[in-house]
């Protein structure tokens, strides 16, 4: 409820900022056509002006220096998400996903996505040879219910994990404040990058 009310306006504002940079246009009409939620357009423009992010003159809209900075963040965010999803789907789809996710995702996640994209190839399955704290880069389990169980316990790409000690047939790991015992079958499916 709450989240939905705020979302439309936030989406419209961010779309406007991105459209100005990406399409290199200042025509209000062209930007309106690009919008995902055109009904929020006028209110979004008004708010952007109040926040000092854009200036309006006649039928055109321009970014202020603060606006340029904000738009830069959104464009970077969009590209990071697009880049991440391009591993799995084609470019057009990745763009569509990024277009949706850019509005709900926070900076830390974008940062993690970028890092994960960079680091994914560097992760290695947990084997008990490396100790300390590492970043989970990939969880690869064929059984979907087991995957869901692992995610719901916090074993999710982008999370920090600490290997504690070996036990017979597996090892003890720590995720945040959760201590888990896993056997090698599970451990070998968790890819981790140790700094």
């Amino acid at each position, binding site marked *: *409820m*709450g*989240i*939905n009310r705020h979302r439309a306006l936030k989406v419209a504002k961010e779309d406007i900022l991105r459209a100005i940079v990406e399409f290199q246009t200042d025509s209000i009409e062209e930007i309106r056509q690009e919008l995902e939620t055109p009904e929020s357009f006028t209110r979004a423009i008004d708010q952007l002006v109040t926040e000092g992010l854009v200036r309006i003159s006649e039928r055109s809209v321009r970014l202020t220096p603060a606006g340029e900075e904000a738009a830069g963040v959104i464009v970077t965010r969009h590209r990071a998400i697009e880049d991440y*999803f391009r591993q*799995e*789907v084609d470019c057009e*789809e990745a763009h*569509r*996903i990024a277009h*949706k*996710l850019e509005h*709900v*995702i*926070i900076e*830390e*996640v974008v940062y993690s996505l970028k890092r994960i994209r960079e680091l994914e190839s560097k992760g290695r399955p947990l084997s008990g040879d490396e100790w300390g704290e590492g970043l989970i880069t990939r969880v690869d389990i064929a059984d*979907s*219910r*087991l*995957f*869901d*169980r*692992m*995610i*719901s*316990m*916090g074993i*999710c*790409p*982008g999370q920090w994990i600490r290997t*504690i*000690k*070996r*036990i*017979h*047939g*597996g090892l*003890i790991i*720590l995720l*945040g*404040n*959760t*201590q*888990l*015992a*896993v*056997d090698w*079958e*599970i451990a070998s499916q968790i890819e981790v990058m140790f700094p």
Partner: protein
Amino acid sequence: MTASQGKKTLKVVLVGQPNVGKSCLLNALVGPCVTISNYPGTTVETTQAKREIGGTSFIFVDSPGTYSLSDRSEDERATKHALLSNDMDVAVIVLDACSLERGLYFALQVIESGVKTVIAMNFIEDAIEKGITIEYDRLGRLLGVPVVPFNPFTKRGLDNLIDEIRNASRLQSATIDVLYDDHIESVISMLIEEGLDISLPTRFVALRILEEDKDFLHLVNKTTMKRITDKISKDCLRITEDIARMRYGTASFLATQGTKIIHRETRKKEVIDSLRIDRWLLHRFGGPAFTLLFFSALFYTLLVVGGAIQCLLMTVSEDLIALIPVDGGFLTQMLIDGLTGVTAGVAMALPYVFLFYIILGLTEDIGLLPRFVVNVQRTLRFFHIPERGFISLMLGLGCTVPAVTSTRIIRERDQRVRLIFLYAFVPCSSRLGIILGVVAFYGGDRLVLPLFATLGIAALFWLLIMRILSKDKLDPILLELPTYRRPMISNIAHKSWLRMREFVVVVIPLLILGGVMYSLIDQLGGTAVLIGPFAFVTEGLLGLPAETIIPILFGFVQKDLTGAMLVSVLGGDVAAVMTPLQMFTFGVVTSIGIPCMIVLPAMSREIGWKNTFVIFVTTGLFSLVVASTAWRIALLFGFT
């Protein structure tokens, strides 16, 4: 969902991930009625409790902990069914403030189901200590449901929680749409367009179908399913994984938005302490050694301390019975027999049951049980027994009935059947009473070790057979280890009482009834009818006095009757009638197999009557074979 308007009773289900304090909250709301322990999987079935608060009557339903709605075992299924049943008015999701992300993952699934929801946040003080302040209002606004902090021990926040539950029951249920990527959304839309015929929100049902939830798959016909799978394979989606990933992403986002990190996150002190202790308790060699030592110490304590209490109780009760004037009358004799039965039964069982539950309570509260599981998992898996079954086996040292129910945490039915087979060799406290309170008491302490060794060898034989016969694959190990906690005396006392209540309410009346019935049958000359036909078993197969068939048969009605009846049948001084070898054989035959009748319905409910029948017959016959063989071997070596 049901409209609660105009309805006086509110039905509220408490749900959440394991070990977040659901049962604690229930006890705080209505007074002690369920057991609380420091390990995931304490609660395996739903428990209801009623209470009138401020003019509204509430029915609170405690549910087994579950990590997500994708249930993997019987206990988790119970939670899902309780949550999604139509007669539930409000769901209270209990979250651990220190593990907010994973808790919110589960919360999002529940909110998606359209159930009216209130979030209750536990362990808030711990979170503050960690430097995390949760902005309850902000988090509540983002989720669209109220978030209430509480502390079950100080009762802080409980009034507020009750108010919010009342409010939530009057309002429309909240909706939060976790935004999935376009592919997933388009498949969701395809399913929604099919018009799924169910009272739950169609978006939620579509998600459950895509997450391969067996309870919902029947709602789509084969053609639609084919279209969906075609679309999924065309888009190369690993859809169940993608849904989980994006839901976790949203949970993570909400957790960050709803909290303020005051200082850099540090690990809880308890976690650091736990890790330090685990260096020793989970040591590759030290761990199993500690586990073995613990159980040896447990049995030794029961033998020594339990024996001393039994001795005291027996002396007092004999003195009391001696005060009754013997006039040879029928009723007086029945009174004396009834009293002898009950006092002997209580004296033989109570010290061991009581002591065991206190020690079990301590072990549970400290958080030792999951550590034992880690230490014995290799051995159990060698015999194809799932490691989580160890906790159930340990509960079996108390009473077999709740232990059988606790096997619900095991996913595969075959594995549950194999585990339940093992209860034939795990002495419940009543059987411990026979071993320690009858065999050791009358035959000497030196019999205890050979008796346990015989049980162990018999169990090992059985385990090897099961290992050869079982072909299925065990689930990989993924076990949460809770941090160690300081045991709370009040909790242990409550818990032991809840468990002991069975003994007082069921066993003591049965002991009285058994004593009186025996007296009646004996005085009418009925015992001879029973003793004669079974002499080939008692005297022939086992070398026992023929009368011992009475305690063996009565013991099957209620195990605690075994010792009491033995005393009744043989007269007060058992040691004068039976040799130590006979005591030993008697101990073996009464300690293996299904302990007593009341286990049968519980077993049949869990694994079906056919399996129950097979277990009952095979282990029963096996007990005779083991006892008979042990007797003959002992004779060969010249024991008497």
